[in-house]
């Protein structure tokens, strides 16, 4: 804390942004490149092999995921409200909104987990040799791989889908763990109107995870 506090007194900081916030922004820039690698791979492989992918909604459950997208956006609102509360020094508001954010985050991961489970049962898996996705409608009519059910897309579809959404989900999970830690710190009275750094950094990470999902949802589910 000494050194961070000392940084605030420095006369030569040229961004006017304190250490923890600058550090988190810089880290998020690297995360942009990470997701670029994954999403870029999806775009490139899909452009080169369009027959290995399916039209929106044929395999993936768009309505459910659209709702999930909405939930994640709600959690961004609760997160920014949490920050606004502690800026005003309202400890109760902070705790309430932080807990809400964490719970919605867990809901998002839960729904995605359920989605994965159902997709896998329909034959939509990342393992190339085992891929035999027949889509939601055919799956409802009979078992995956049943005679007459056409396979939709190819192995690359499953491979890229699970890698992209899986790593996003992992980031959300880590975010949820960090949120609970932030809640714990809040209950210990660590934050105040003068000491918002931890909450602000947590918020930046959480909004970023939401932002990535906004892009991912459009590219993977709607196109």
């Amino acid at each position: 804390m000494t050194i961070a506090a000392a940084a605030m007194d420095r006369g030569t900081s040229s961004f006017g942004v304190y250490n923890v916030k600058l550090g988190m922004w810089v880290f998020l820039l690297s995360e942009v490149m990470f997701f670029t690698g994954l999403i870029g791979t999806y775009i490139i492989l899909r452009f080169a092999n369009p027959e290995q992918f399916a039209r929106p909604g044929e395999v993936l459950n768009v309505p459910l995921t659209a709702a999930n997208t909405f939930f994640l956006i709600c959690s961004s609102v609760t997160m920014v409200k949490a920050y606004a509360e502690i800026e005003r020094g309202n400890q109760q508001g902070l705790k309430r909104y932080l807990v809400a954010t964490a719970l919605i985050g867990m809901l998002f991961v839960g729904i995605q987990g359920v989605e994965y489970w159902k997709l896998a049962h329909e034959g939509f898996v990342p393992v190339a040799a085992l891929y035999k996705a027949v889509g939601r409608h055919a799956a409802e009519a009979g078992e995956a791989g049943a005679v007459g059910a056409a396979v939709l897309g190819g192995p690359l579809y499953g491979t890229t889908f699970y890698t992209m959404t899986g790593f996003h989900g992992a980031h959300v999970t880590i975010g949820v763990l960090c949120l609970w830690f932030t809640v714990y710190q809040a209950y210990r009275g660590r934050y105040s109107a003068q000491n918002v750094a931890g909450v602000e950094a947590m918020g930046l990470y959480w909004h970023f995870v939401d932002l990535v999902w906004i892009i991912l949802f459009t590219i993977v589910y709607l196109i």
Partner: protein
Amino acid sequence: MSTVATAHETAAHTHEEIPFLRKYIFSTDHKVIGIQFLFMSLFFLLVGGLLAMAMRWQLAFPANPNAGFEGRPLPGGGLLPETMVAGGVMLPEFYNALVTMHGTIMVFFAIMPLLIGVWANYLIPLQIGAPDMAFPRLNMASFWMAMPAGMMMLASFAVVGGAANAGWTAYAPLSVMPEYSGVHLGQQLWELSLVILGFSSLMGAVNYITTIVNMRAPGMTWFRLPLSTWALFITSILLLLAIPVLAGGLIMQFFDQTIGTGFFKPDDGGQPLLWQHLFWFFGHPEVYILILPAMGFVSDILANGARKPVFGYAAMVWAIVGIGFIGWIVWGHHMFMSGMNPMLGGFFMVTTLMIAVPSAIKTFNWLGTIWGGNIRFHTPFLHAISFVALFVIGGLSGVFVASAPVDIPLHDTYFVVAHIHYVLVGGSLFGIFGAITFWFPKMFGRMMNEPLGKIHWALTFVFFNLTFFPMHMLGSGGMMRRLYDPTQYPHIAQYQDTNIFITYSALLLFASQFIFMFNFFWSLFRGRKASENPWEANSLEWTAPSPPPHGNWGDRKLKVYRGPYEYSAPGASADYLLQTDPAQGVPAPASH
């Protein structure tokens, strides 16, 4: 303000009571972490060198009786299992593993940590006037991720199937198909180790960038930073944005290997070329990561040795920035022969030739720096000036391979091996030796032995050139890279004498490094005690004690009045002028 002062005092107070484990093993002090990286990476440098010696032995003395080459048993080969060396003869699969691991260990666990893990950590706070990094605990985590990653890489030699053997570039499909490479777990450990190391470097980059932006002492403006710090700053930005792409690619390769995805397998619709693009998008900024810090050190050391300001300081800064920028759009020059779109090849050729310009600006400015100087030929200066000469040779061979048509016969030959070793050893490693000999007194409070340093330098310089210069000829003559037995091809067998000559030179080069090792360890305990500023240099680290205490300057408030290169300033009482010296009436040099 008072809260800061009392917090300072408590920090100084509690430091006395810190137990051994927290003070030296799990330290959050940037200097201790830098030194930890130093010992770790010197160890890996030794390992990488040993692997190269084994490779060179095989290249000089292959067992090919049909062509008249009897071969010689590998020294120490009897200690290795039958899967590596059978009856004194190295197996081809093991040779491929040696090639792969030599490159991987040297790039990721020797040169990168030596340039960045050591010097970004040690120098940045000291040169900008900060008490420590912005995130000291994150810094500690950085080291304690790098170390296990290194151990994992070494452990991969011991698993069934052996270590990764698809080259340090791990091209698909070989790297994702164990049925071709014979390596299962080894390749997977390779991928995981690099992901962990990448994360360690990433955390470091976040720390270095935040620290340099936010924690400079009052008066330390951007254009008063030493070029070492500038170089480390731009390097950190390259690390920050390039490593995640490598991580993504490594993860995809890992999934291909383990859970049966098909990112890079043509059978499943994957694209091997995609791996090459992802890898080299990282790989090219990576080579600038491997050279820029050394360029920074060279600027600082040459100015100090010549007792003159760096020629064209602002141009040097913009050249570093320019190399950082253009370095993002040249990666295809590693792929001219991959079968990629030839129009793309043309684009990459142009951008690659462009990047020679800022490098040339730096070279001319180094010459301008020492021109007419009152030169002190101390050991760091010798290494730094060797950097300039050898980097120029490496850069010139780079111009050849940058030209796509010329690259057609030269790609994947020893010409490229010559190029990369001239820039990585002639450049980076000499820069590292210069940095170690220059900042050793600050780190350990003792001088290294000068005569031994000069002997080490001279032998290294001679044997380095004898080893690598002939490779230009071998490559032009058609000798391919990663070749287990050169004598199997008549057009290469005729050059076998050259290969033997190179091997002997390489062995002597390796042996010469023991002089450095001896000097290093002996000086740790018996070196002449160093003063605060033994080289009569200007930058802020030379105003702290040797070695500096925790917090670097204690409660002393620093203020910077001038740039870092005011050597031989007219009107000054000495031929150097510390950045903290407010001496009135001494004009700042005209360049800024």
